[in-house]
């Protein structure tokens, strides 16, 4: 029965779930790393027990089948819930973004586009206007044009943005402080074996979903893709706690979380395969092949659920789906590679500036005013964004407009080309045309918007609200790409007799597609900042619906990664992991120094000797004193202090629990009782107290290396096996211990970083 911290008066056994769960042997403390090998062996034991029992009766056989299928059931549930939440978020964002500008009189829950859907009064020139949608100035002072209307609309826009941002940061602060930020650096760390209790909890899920809608609607320069991965992982955690196969085993749970991350990216971009590859490349640490198939299933279920909710109409999954097939030419690879270089440079600039700003937020007084910071940044964003039409609209709509090709039917300023009235070509084969006045206006507005977005995103990412990075990076790249594309298009039109254009661009042909340049630019910038490779290309080609553009996308992605890697090896997520000091041993880091295990192990020369337990000569009181005086996570157990031959390793948490248990329950255990780890109790004098056997908590197979093992091998062992500590021996005698923290500090020291920034164990 469960032991409560308090009197058990026999009332309300049903209410036991409200009590604090008793920490049993085998669970982990907050901010500690799990023992991958133990979790794996526990799962193998469980599986073997079920398999052996399944032969006994039909009921046991059915139970074994249910156990095998529980993985698929969890994936199905995760896909359903993630898709539903993404659909809710998309619909709510669509509505609330338009709420800043006006409201629909017939039904207040319709956004601008939905309100004018059934109207018959939309004309070709004014496609956005319909009598049912009223701007705020029309409602309040009954004017729709003029200076006072503009100022009133401006003021209402700023007020709504401030209201949304204030609500979001207050909700995060009061209910779930873990809901802020992107979530991907912390999820990467959790998937590598770290425990952050509450990070994937139910309140975090609820608050992250609700506040994500608020912050995206407030017009801040952030996206929802990273937070959607966090939301999907929370769903994964929630459903895996329903099945004991996953709730009791931290290693199996992380398999489910990897698949949930794939489902999250799948609904964020409408790209199931890209989602699986993103989870494999960026988020997960260990990715067994079984997880690959299950992640794909979860991602497909999530995408299908989102499709049936149909938030964007026409069964599109993402706002910026494009489906044109105009070909590209080899000579265009040169501007594509230029866009790749731009993406790499921007990525480096962004990472350096953002990390510097976040470090300042962490260490100075700026970090003491999170609510004020959010309000100030929102005010600045709203004030500067409103006058420019390209920053006033939501960033997803901007990207959609920039990705689109200009047929004869577009009415936006970007498509204000000089049309030939006698032209009789069908809609999707319009030849290149000279730019009209609207295009030139659009170009300098885009340039201003580009500079603004580059600057403001540095200050926005990392605030205490849910914030993602994918959409702002894609917007920066799309703006740069579209400008380059229009430039190349006009150059090809006006100078079609130059050598480079003569071969492939005849007058009267549709050569250059500026929308493609926008896509390539978006891919380059996203790759420059996150350093994604394969997953980026797959996501982009799933967004465009075709394989024609794989080569330009790959060229840009590869170029941007090379350029960005020349300045620094870390992407934005690894940089944030380093900033927070999480114990994340990156598989991408190469360790090429020639140090040995003896250089890194503790105790060093001049330090107090290693705290060890002996196998049968310490009393309970000695052990308790040792535990109280030190804060090590575990103690090696040796034969005796003279011959320091290693027996095994005992964890601190399990020692504490076992001693506490023994004192409460076992007869005759006092402070003077001898604690022994052998099978048989030692020889004791006649009236000594009852000895305490703790062999069951001893790990008899700790990993050991010799003192001359190169650190390269040690780092490899830590990475591949997920170790937390490793013992160093020489000729069978225990010399010292290397923990994961020591390894990380050593790597930081070798890379000339600050080794004191590694905070956790």
């Amino acid at each position, binding site marked *: 029965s469960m032991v409560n911290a308090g009197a058990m008066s026999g009332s309300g056994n049903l209410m036991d779930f409200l009590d*604090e769960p008793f920490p049993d042997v085998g669970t982990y403390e907050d901010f500690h790393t799990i023992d991958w090998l133990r979790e794996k062996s526990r799962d193998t034991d469980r599986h073997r027990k079920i398999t052996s029992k399944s032969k006994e009766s039909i009921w046991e056989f059915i139970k074994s089948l249910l156990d095998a299928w529980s993985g698929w059931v969890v994936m199905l549930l995760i896909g359903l819930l993630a898709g539903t*939440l993404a659909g809710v978020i998309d619909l709510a964002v669509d509505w609330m973004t338009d709420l800043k500008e006006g409201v629909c009189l017939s039904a207040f829950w319709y956004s601008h586009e939905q309100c004018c859907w059934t109207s018959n009064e939309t004309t070709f020139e004014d496609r956005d206007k319909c009598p049912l949608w009223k701007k705020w100035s029309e409602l309040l002072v009954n004017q729709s044009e003029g200076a006072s209307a503009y100022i009133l609309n401006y003021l209402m826009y700023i007020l709504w943005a401030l209201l949304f941002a204030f609500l979001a940061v207050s909700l995060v602060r*009061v209910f779930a402080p873990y809901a802020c930020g992107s979530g991907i650096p912390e999820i990467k760390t959790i998937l590598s074996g770290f425990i952050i209790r509450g990070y994937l909890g139910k309140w975090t899920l609820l608050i992250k979903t609700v506040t994500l809608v608020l912050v995206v609607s407030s017009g801040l320069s952030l996206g929802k893709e990273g937070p959607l991965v966090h939301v999907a992982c929370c769903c994964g955690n929630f459903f895996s706690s329903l099945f004991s196969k996953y709730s009791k085993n931290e290693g199996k749970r992380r398999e489910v979380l990897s698949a949930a991350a794939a489902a999250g990216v799948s609904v964020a971009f409408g790209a199931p395969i890209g989602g699986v590859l993103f989870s494999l490349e960026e988020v997960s640490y260990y990715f067994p092949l079984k997880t690959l198939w299950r992640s794909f299933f979860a991602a497909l279920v999530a995408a299908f659920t989102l499709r049936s909710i149909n938030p964007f109409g026409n069964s599109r999954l993402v706002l910026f789906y494009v489906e044109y097939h105009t070909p590209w030419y080899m000579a265009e690879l040169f501007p594509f590679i230029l866009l790749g270089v731009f993406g790499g440079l921007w990525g480096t600039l962004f990472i350096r500036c953002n990390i510097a700003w976040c470090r300042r937020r962490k260490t100075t007084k700026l970090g003491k005013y999170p609510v004020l910071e959010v309000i100030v940044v929102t005010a600045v964003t709203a004030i500067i964004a409103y006058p420019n039409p390209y920053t006033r609209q939501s960033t997803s709509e901007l990207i959609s407009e920039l990705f689109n090709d200009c047929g004869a039917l577009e009415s936006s300023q970007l498509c204000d080309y000089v049309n030939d009235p006698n032209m009789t070509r069908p809609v999707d084969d319009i030849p290149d045309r000279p730019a009209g006045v609207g295009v030139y206006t659009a170009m300098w507005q885009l340039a201003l918007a580009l500079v603004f977005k580059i600057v403001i995103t540095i200050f926005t990412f990392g605030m*205490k609200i849910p914030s993602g990075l994918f959409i702002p990076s894609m917007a920066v790249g799309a703006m740069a790409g579209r400008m380059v594309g229009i430039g190349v298009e006009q150059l090809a039109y006006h100078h079609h007799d130059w050598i480079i254009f003569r071969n492939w661009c005849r007058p009267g042909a549709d050569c250059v597609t500026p929308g493609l340049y926008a896509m390539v630019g978006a891919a380059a910038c996203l790759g420059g900042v996150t350093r994604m490779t394969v997953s980026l290309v797959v996501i982009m080609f799933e967004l465009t619906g075709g394989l024609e553009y794989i080569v330009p996308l790959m060229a840009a992605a590869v170029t941007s990664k090379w350029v960005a890697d020349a300045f620094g090896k870390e992407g934005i997520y690894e940089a944030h992991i380093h*900033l927070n000091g999480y114990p994340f041993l990156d598989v991408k880091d190469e360790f090429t120094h020639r140090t040995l295990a003896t250089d890194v192990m503790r105790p060093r020369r001049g330090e107090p000797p290693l705290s060890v337990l002996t196998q049968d000569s310490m009393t309970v009181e000695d052990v308790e004193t040792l535990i109280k005086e030190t804060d090590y996570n575990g103690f090696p157990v040796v034969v005796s202090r003279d011959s320091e031959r290693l027996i095994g390793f005992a964890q601190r948490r399990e020692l504490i629990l076992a001693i506490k248990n023994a004192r409460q329950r076992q007869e005759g255990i006092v402070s003077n009782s001898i604690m022994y780890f052998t099978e048989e109790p030692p020889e004791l004098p006649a009236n000594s107290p009852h000895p305490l056997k703790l062999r069951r908590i001893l790990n008899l197979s700790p990993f050991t290396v010799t003192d001359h093992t190169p650190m390269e091998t040690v780092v490899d062992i830590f990475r591949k096996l997920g170790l937390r500590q490793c013992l160093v021996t020489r000729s069978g005698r225990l010399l010292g211990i290397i923990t994961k923290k020591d390894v990380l500090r050593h790597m930081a020291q070798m890379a000339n970083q600050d080794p004191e920034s590694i905070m956790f164990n």
Partner: protein
Amino acid sequence: MAALWGGLFRLGSMLSLSCLALSVLLLVQLSDAAKNFEDVRCKCICPPYKDNSGHIYNKNISQKDCDCLHVVDPMPVLGPDVEAYCLRCECKYEERSSVTIKVTIIIYLSILGLLLLYMVYLTLVEPILKRRLFGHSQLIQSDDDVGDHQPFANAHDVLARSRSRANVLNKVEYAQQRWKLQVQEQRKSVFDRHVVLS
């Protein structure tokens, strides 16, 4: 036995939450079937041609009939020009589900409203109530909470008090106070010490 009931209860609450999510989804599917008449349309955009200005035509028509000849009505050009005119028009079949949009927005606004009310209660109303019920002396903060105007600042006081009685209402309050303590710990590590999520 108690553990079994407790586990079943927990399973039940979690299953009901997931059932809620699934029922929302089912509602969406059902609403798909009972589609509003106005939720389907074929939209044709025709650019300016010769003397005619550009125009947008909407008609509620099935997907196989969604083309220029069925939707553009009345046809502004005559005879041989019809083909040239229609070649430049772009017709798209669109559908939406107005019921889904309405249900989603209303559910979202109600959840947001409930959260805001609970937040106002926790930050403003509850300290006033507790001060009136337990008197001023019991709210003396511990040393590291001096000047701490955060919500849940007195969580461990209430935790210590409520351990003495063990009935259902108190257990609910105990669980709520434990949650508040967790949130306070999280807030300390994120906002104050900047240890996680800088």
